[in-house]
């Protein structure tokens, strides 16, 4: 295989550079801003919004209006997909004022938290799952993501203050076992290739 001249290699890499810059200009609009704490990664992801004609009272009374419930079920967060169900006894609704601190999160706007029994073996008290916010006449429903539960519950569930440590060893402990196996394969690969003295 003749070694390709320097010119073709550099031209190939320049085309890749131009292609990547074009791609990144195309994509940058839909990215979450840097450091925005309400982005899907850091807090919650927006599911849908519905016009709130009479639902605020039933929410205050602690009953999830059927229209929202059926909408959530239809989206797929239902029993068949192995999600916690929204029957009567299984959830609780709490009203959260603007500016309160919960799980290391500042609530910049008031709304209702829907807490659901997760059905895990050792932790069965309700967990923050959905967040309903009233905005100029309609209700938008959000679904909480990873950090909310971990920041709020890591002390209580795993007694480890460092959330990165508990995330590494506990919540996603299986990843770390894979990580150790990667280190082991690296070491054995190097032994296999280079070692000549010694038994192995």
């Amino acid at each position, binding site marked *: 295989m003749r070694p390709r001249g320097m010119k073709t290699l550099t031209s190939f890499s320049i085309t890749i550079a131009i292609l990547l810059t074009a791609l990144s200009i195309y994509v940058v609009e839909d990215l979450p801003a840097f450091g925005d704490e309400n982005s899907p990664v850091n807090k919650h992801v927006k599911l849908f919004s519905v016009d709130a004609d009479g639902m605020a009272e039933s929410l205050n009374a602690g009953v999830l209006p059927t229209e929202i419930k059926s909408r959530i079920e239809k989206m797929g967060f239902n029993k068949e997909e192995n999600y916690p169900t929204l029957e009567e006894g299984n959830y609780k609704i709490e009203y959260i004022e603007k500016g309160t601190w919960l799980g290391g999160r500042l609530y910049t706007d008031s709304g209702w938290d829907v807490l659901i029994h997760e059905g895990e073996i050792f932790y069965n008290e309700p967990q923050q799952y959905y967040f309903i916010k009233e905005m100029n006449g309609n209700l938008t429903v959000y679904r909480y993501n990873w950090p909310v539960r971990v920041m709020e519950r890591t002390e209580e569930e795993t*007694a480890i203050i460092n959330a990165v440590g508990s995330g590494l060893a506990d919540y996603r402990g*299986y990843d770390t076992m894979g990580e150790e196996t990667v280190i082991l394969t690296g070491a054995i690969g190097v032994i296999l290739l280079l*070692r000549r003295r010694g038994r192995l």
Partner: protein
Amino acid sequence: MTPERKVYKRDVIIEVTAKLMSPLILLFGLYVMIGTGGTGGGFQGGTILATGFILYITVFGSEKGREKVPESVNAFFKSFGLFLYNGAGWICILFSLAAAQWLNMPAFWPVTDFVGIAGARSFMVAYMISVGIGLTVMASFVSQYFDLAWKEDDEMEGDEG
């Protein structure tokens, strides 16, 4: 950096400081590794332990280093670390008679009775998982150091593929 056997110069100052420093580095590595409260976790502790050994091996050469860290002990620590970690997952299934999942640590009921559910998790993470990670990382990096950094002497004679 590849020490021919004959012209290997020895320097007293470096050797004495290395003899003094590496046990302290190992001690600090142990502190970082064990326990969840303090700084770092298993991985960072393991790397610090590895640097303790690597300092000793660099100064005293690979033969003396091999006496301190023989190959079989090194491989044992690699596997033992992962036995600890894998075993932690395996125990949870065994002790809960296949009721709990792979790494569901409160299922290890002797510990849960004493320190409760959250305590059981932090005990297992602090002593079984962090120590397991630390040992594997230490042994792996030390054995990689032996192979990558130290050209073995007999390799001089023939170019063996």
